[in-house]
């Protein structure tokens, strides 16, 4: 039984494409720009242009479409819900009606638009994690947050937290699986019963998991101290980020695109 095998975290696909090689900061800012754009545009043409841009980036990243689309799967229910809500709830020129449910042209339009917006949003943001290794991602976030330090943003600490979380998620999942199997061998049942029943059956899993997690945290703190860790002050980086020509071009094009499309459409 592989309980947690289908959970992928930091679903990074190693590669050496133009997108992979970009500085993580460029990609993070680009993603933020994309999100902004998708909330700004409000016309069919606007969405079409955004879609073309995303398709272009996917092509450049050499990530198989299969993997990009797989990212949409967990969203399917939300997508369906959004589309149907808009479909049924928008007033306007009716297409047809069944009993009290009325479907309108406006609803159809809004529903499809919202669906496309969500799908593009997810595809665009997953491109970031698919082409950027967790280390690069945290380094990028740390570097981008650094200016906020003066107003009290704990840039280094946040990045450190993310690194440790990413490091320990697989370890904790493995441990959860081990404990679960041990409890099942003693007759525990995690699969049947109502919601309350199942929630209750998780307690013997969660308690040892938490106790162990705290012990791990303690051990790790001592190990980090022994390795000379004393916060972000005076620390250097193994792999320094490098904002190059390609980054300048990519960022320039992105900003121009977002301003143009966002304002015009």
């Amino acid at each position, binding site marked *: 039984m592989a309980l947690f095998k289908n959970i992928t975290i930091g679903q990074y696909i190693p590669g050496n494409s133009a997108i992979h090689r970009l500085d993580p900061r460029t990609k993070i800012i680009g993603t933020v720009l994309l999100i902004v754009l998708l909330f700004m545009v409000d016309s069919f043409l606007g969405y079409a242009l955004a879609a073309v841009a995303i398709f272009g980036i996917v092509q450049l990243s050499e990530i198989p479409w299969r993997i990009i689309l797989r990212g949409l799967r967990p969203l399917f229910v939300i997508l369906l819900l959004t589309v149907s809500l808009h479909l049924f709830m928008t007033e306007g020129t009716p297409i047809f009606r069944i009993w009290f449910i009325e479907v309108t042209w406006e609803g159809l339009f809004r529903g499809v638009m919202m669906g496309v917006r969500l799908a593009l949003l997810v595809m665009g943001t997953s491109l970031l994690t698919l082409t950027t290794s967790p*280390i690069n991602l945290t380094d990028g976030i740390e570097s981008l947050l650094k200016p906020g330090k003066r107003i009290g943003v704990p840039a280094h600490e946040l990045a450190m937290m993310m690194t440790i979380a990413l490091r320990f998620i697989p370890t904790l999942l493995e441990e959860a699986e081990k404990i679960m199997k041990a409890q099942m061998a003693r007759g525990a049942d995690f699969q049947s019963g109502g919601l309350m029943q199942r929630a209750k059956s998780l307690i013997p899993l969660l308690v040892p998991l938490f106790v162990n997690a705290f012990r791990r945290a303690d051990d790790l703190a001592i190990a980090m101290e022994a390795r000379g860790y004393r916060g972000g002050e005076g*620390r*250097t980086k*193994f792999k320094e980020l490098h904002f190059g020509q390609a980054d300048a071009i990519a960022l320039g094009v992105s900003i121009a695109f977002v301003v143009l499309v966002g304002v015009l459409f």
Partner: protein
Amino acid sequence: MAKPLIRFEGVHFRYNPGTEREWAALQGIDLDIYPGEFVAVLGHNGSGKSTLAKHCNALLVPSSGRVLVDGLDTKDDAAVWQIRQTIGMVFQNPDNQLVATTVEEDVAFGPENLGIPSKEIQARVDEALRAVGMEAYRLHSPHQLSGGQKQRVAIAGMISMRPRCIVLDEPTAMLDPEGRREVMHTIHRLNETEKITIVHITHHMDEVINADRVVIMTDGKIALQGTPKDVFSNVELLRSLHLDVPQVTALSHRLRSRGLNLPDGIITVDELVECLCQS
């Protein structure tokens, strides 16, 4: 003899002083560890081995007495930095001491903390991974490694800081026999070729017979120390301290009590065979 690298002078240590959970874990330790030595520390559960280890790099400081590392007092806050660079430490649980998401990033963690320039960190990471034979795994993430491999990465994480001594607190306790062999091979090689001083804390008798010196602890004190041969000559004393002796030593002891003419302190099979042939 050379100046000791680590010197314990009448060290006492109490956990939670002044509370009802107060516990005197170290009770008057005098111990010198010299550059280049391979020292094994043995002792039953709760005898204070881990507490002793944590005094070596100022993770704990004595309640009374003092610990000097290369002449620096561990109580001196300004020296702690230098001390942690001099003495590396590897712990029991291989999972709980790796910080980063890839092997090479983890090995780089120490040098990053020391503020070493990026170029030099690269060189140190390469060198450290080579020293423990893990260069093929640089881009693996820790959870893809076996226990023995994780411990070797943890050791590499120390080597990249260029310490003069590595203290290992039961590094093999959670490993399978293969993992134990890997780790023992690695630390003996570091001791012999890189001249790194090793303090190896363990429960396994067979891991101490190749040490230069064995230190036996009981109840926060040093009960006995000397070469493995000397220490294992005291089979009765060790037994009274609830410690095992290597199997070969136990066998020779029994043979002797049955009247065979064998010397004290036999610790390897070869030795026993030779002595049996002579007698």
